């Protein structure tokens, strides 16, 4: 075993780059198997209604249609056909009632996709309309109830008190209490209170949702699912649970994903494909169109109220946060967003007295779940806009007020957990340096005014979660890594291979990364929440170290020096020829302590993610049009395993959040999405991307593998408030709702001038 050049810390090109640009990479969306039927769904055209009748006769009669199923057909196969990670609330096809416009009510199977699609259009359903609720704050007290009875999944301790609760839309209420808020407000020199809103948006990976389900086994009692999922292990267990099977009856295989961003976690297209395949006894493919993504999973719209007690010098002494998360018709992972992100609602600041009330709400809109940042961008939007509004009122520089309040290493955050390896100060200072914050700033001239803003946010890692890995060393010295981490474009294959290479001293070209296959690769919680580098990284490192130790043992057993002998010679000596393997296994689960009734815990997260953005803008004072002319993004990712990949993760996250900041918004009319297409819902194109500078500060996560931690989301944190703060800096217009539009700026300018724009 001879050591090659260090692999970790180098910008090694992505392993899959060639396969992707030459069109050879596999995606489920492109997959076809013999005998396969295509599933197309008919969707509800009311937001909330009791199902009176679903007429499928015309669809069934269409030549070429193999079968048409409704929720009642599914119920014959699966007695309780409801799934979900936090609540078992989502039916495979609507049963008894529909809870949002666009909910699947029936499915058509046909060998020809066009036939299936046309047949789906012929399905007519009648509903008795029910009162609907769309707004997250109204949902707290609304008479319209989305789910009559709550059905928590039982996996989460903090949801147990909601079991069988009736007539409420609150799917989780999280509370945190620290210090004496009332006294602190009374003692404060100033009290500021502001309310902020964010809009509903969605992920839109370029590869939509897709599953191919194949029935196998002698008794037709097992399934193979090829799926574009970020969570193969969860899908396996959840599908097995639905059918009352053991896990080994379900095999989930995942090739590359054409993007995920949190959309493809937990069960999405899998349950319907699996149920259809079992009913039809034929392979079934359920792949959504781009437009159907608008009815699958979205990002929470939110209302956030923040109230702060502040001393004359800018020191924040008290903070009260109320957050209402619009979860849509099904809980998905929303309750986790409410708690796991909710506890960072006061921001990365040292505040002794804090109250947080965070509510996950059901409404009659498409469901909301995890989207790159897991609720953090909504929270940072509120608290960092609030920070600047306070600074402006008190005539304190935005950098100064942040310096005064920022949490320092070893200080307790709102949960009581101490900040460890959280380079908040460093990120803030580096940002100020790159923006030349303390130097004079050119303010523009004529009708163009310039401004700049900054924002900093942080995130905890969802915890505790488990990762397992296997490293299989072949006699010739090449090896394979078996892990259920999904490479959805973030580059996990490459960095995991780098870690194996580093530990084993095997060049990267001799390492194969085996893609998730639950019959082959071991358990992993999921690829989400920027957890893979840290959690799977540890498991992979442990597995590689285990394999290396076994190789050392083998070498000494046959009387060779592992340091100087090539690997094949060690195997040859042992087995008389090139034969055999060494299998190293590794696992990782971080320590964690659940919060108590007051939301307090000594160990809220295995690591903190830090992200900050500085923005410069130019605003046209006659039209409100504005241009972001510079974005500076700073993150703490610990030590970078692959600096080039870190850079693309920062820029990708930033651009995605910039779309949510300036352009994207799902528009609704009576609960119907009115812009469910890429022509009417505009994601950023190349020409929308401003000049950007990205930097990972020099830092180390001492508890991380090779000093590293996650990076996928940190670039999203500061974008929205940084731009809003810059607009305010330029023209004195404060926007409190996303997206930030030219019209909103224009209306602000008119109001400021005492001549509000009237809508005739």
């Amino acid at each position: 075993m001879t050591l090659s050049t260090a692999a970790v810390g180098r910008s090694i090109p992505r392993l899959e780059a060639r396969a992707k640009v030459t069109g050879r990479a596999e995606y489920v969306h492109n997959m076809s198997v013999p005998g396969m039927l295509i599933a197309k769904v008919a969707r509800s055209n009311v937001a909330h209604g009791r199902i009176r009748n679903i007429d499928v006769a015309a669809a069934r009669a269409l030549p070429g249609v193999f079968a048409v199923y409704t929720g009642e057909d599914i119920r014959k196969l699966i007695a309780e056909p409801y799934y979900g990670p936090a609540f078992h609330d989502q039916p495979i096809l609507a049963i008894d009632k529909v809870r949002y416009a666009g909910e699947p009510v029936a499915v058509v199977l046909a060998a020809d996709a066009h036939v299936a699609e046309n047949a789906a259009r012929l399905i007519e359903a009648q509903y008795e309309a029910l009162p609907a609720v769309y707004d997250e704050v109204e949902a707290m007290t609304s008479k319209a109830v989305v789910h009559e009875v709550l059905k928590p999944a039982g996996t989460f301790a903090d949801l147990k008190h909601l079991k069988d609760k009736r007539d409420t839309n609150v799917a989780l209420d999280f509370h945190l209490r620290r210090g004496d808020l009332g006294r602190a407000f009374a003692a404060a020199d100033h009290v500021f209170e502001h309310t902020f809103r964010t809009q509903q948006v969605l992920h839109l990976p370029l590869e939509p949702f897709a599953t191919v389900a194949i029935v196998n086994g002698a008794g037709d009692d097992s399934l193979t699912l090829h799926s574009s999922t970020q969570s193969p292990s969860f899908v396996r267990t959840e599908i097995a649970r639905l059918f009352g099977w053991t896990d080994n009856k379900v095999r989930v295989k995942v090739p590359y994903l054409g993007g995920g961003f949190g959309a493809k976690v937990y069960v999405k297209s899998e349950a319907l494909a699996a149920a259809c395949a079992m009913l039809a006894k034929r392979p079934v493919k359920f792949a959504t169109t781009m437009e159907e993504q608008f009815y699958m999973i979205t990002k929470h719209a939110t209302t956030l109220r923040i109230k702060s007690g502040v001393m004359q010098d800018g020191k924040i002494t008290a903070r009260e946060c109320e957050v209402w998360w619009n979860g849509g018709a099904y809980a998905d992972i929303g309750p986790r967003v409410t708690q796991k992100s909710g506890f960072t609602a006061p921001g990365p600041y040292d505040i002794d007295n804090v109250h947080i009330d965070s509510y996950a709400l059901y409404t009659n809109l498409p469901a909301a779940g995890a989207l790159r940042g897991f609720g953090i961008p909504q929270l940072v939007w509120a608290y960092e806009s609030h920070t600047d509004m306070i600074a402006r009122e008190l005539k304190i520089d935005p950098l100064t007020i942040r310096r005064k309040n920022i949490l320092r290493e070893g200080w307790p955050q709102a949960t009581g957990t101490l900040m460890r390896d959280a380079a908040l100060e460093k990120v803030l200072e580096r940002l100020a340096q790159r923006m030349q914050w303390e130097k004079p700033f050119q303010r523009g001239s004529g009708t163009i005014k310039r401004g700049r803003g900054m924002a900093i946010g942080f995130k905890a890692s969802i915890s505790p979660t488990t990762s397992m890995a296997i490293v299989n060393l072949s006699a010739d010295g090449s090896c394979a890594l078996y892990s259920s981490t999904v490479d959805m474009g973030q580059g996990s294959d490459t960095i995991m291979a780098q870690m194996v290479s580093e530990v084993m001293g095997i060049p990267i070209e001799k390492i194969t990364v085996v893609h998730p296959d639950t019959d082959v690769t071991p358990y992993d919680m999921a690829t989400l929440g920027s957890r893979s580098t840290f959690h799977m990284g540890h498991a992979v490192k442990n597995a590689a170290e285990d394999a290396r130790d076994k190789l050392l043992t083998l070498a000494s057993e046959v009387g060779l020096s592992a340091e100087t002998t090539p690997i094949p010679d060690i195997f040859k000596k042992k087995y008389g020829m090139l034969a055999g393997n060494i299998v190293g296994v590794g696992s990782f689960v971080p320590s964690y302590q659940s919060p108590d009734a007051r939301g307090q815990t000594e160990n809220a997260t295995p690591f903190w993610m830090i992200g900050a953005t500085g923005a410069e803008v130019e605003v046209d004072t006659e039209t409100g049009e504005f241009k972001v002319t510079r974005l500076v993004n700073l993150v703490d990712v610990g030590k970078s395993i692959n600096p080039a990949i870190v850079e693309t993760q920062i820029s990708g996250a930033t651009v995605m959040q910039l779309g949510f900041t300036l352009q994207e918004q799902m528009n609704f009319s009576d609960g119907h999405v009115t812009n469910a297409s890429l022509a009417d819902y505009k994601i950023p194109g190349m020409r929308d991307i401003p000049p950007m500078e990205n930097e990972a500060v020099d830092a180390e996560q001492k508890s991380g593998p090779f000093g590293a931690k996650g990076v996928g989301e940190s670039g999203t944190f500061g974008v929205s408030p940084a731009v809003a703060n810059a607009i305010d800096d330029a023209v004195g217009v404060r926007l409190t709702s996303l997206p930030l539009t030219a019209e909103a700026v224009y209306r602000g300018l008119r109001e400021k001038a005492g001549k509000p724009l009237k809508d005739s």
Partner: protein
Amino acid sequence: MTPFELAEPTSLAEAIALMGEGAGIGDNAARAIAGGTALMLMMKAGVFQPKRLVSLRRVEPRYAEIAATPEGGLRIGALATLTALERSAVVKQAAPVITQTLKTLSNVRVRNVATVGGALAHGDPHMDLPPLLTALGAQVRTVSPKGERTLAVGELYTGYYETALAENELITEVLVPPLAGLRVAYKKITTRAADDWPTLGLTVALQLNGGVVADARLVVSAATNTPTRLAAAEKILRGTTLDTATLARCGDAAVSEVELAGDAHGSSAYKRELLRVYTQRVLREIWGKS
């Protein structure tokens, strides 16, 4: 999308015949397809379910030609792609405003296949060429089983997605008269993404004579059902020297004489303010050009 028959005639006459009798009616009617960039989206959405598509790709190549006329105008075959139009040296010479407009018209993938005829016949009020060609006084020549006719681009649009074209009538070419000193600009105002439908389109054409406006044509688009001439604003400009007061009056007149529809790009009230400001800005920009 519903399966359909694809006909690929090699002459325009044949294409017209294939779109005629027995080829369905209304949403099922046979449709001509050139670039297909709009039609395919509408078929995917189920708006049209034609039994037959008549591809124009193989008809006589002369229908894709772009040429300068002896008078200094342009003769543009309806099947010329938008990219061909964008890159044409004769277009750049005769009417650089067309070249300029194409740079921000949709995106390069669309421009590579979409055709001039399709862009004019589609009737979507958000498109860029109809208002520009209206302001330039361009005409289209069409052919149908009833024969040929010529009409002004300004007469082509009768309502929201409605045109004066019969179902089996095809545009064959566009005739752009010589600019003859006409100063023209098209301003596409987008408020969401850079590559987006315009919130508002504004075309301004000015004929100057000895430092005075001899003729003015202002066309607003995207927020109206059809490209709409702003007659009152034009009238104010004629005979003036575009001083600040005139510009302001012109902006106010433009806003008063037209109804602008609010949508996801902006409210009606906001679009009025955009029109007021950009009318003045575009005029000032043209005026400043030597």
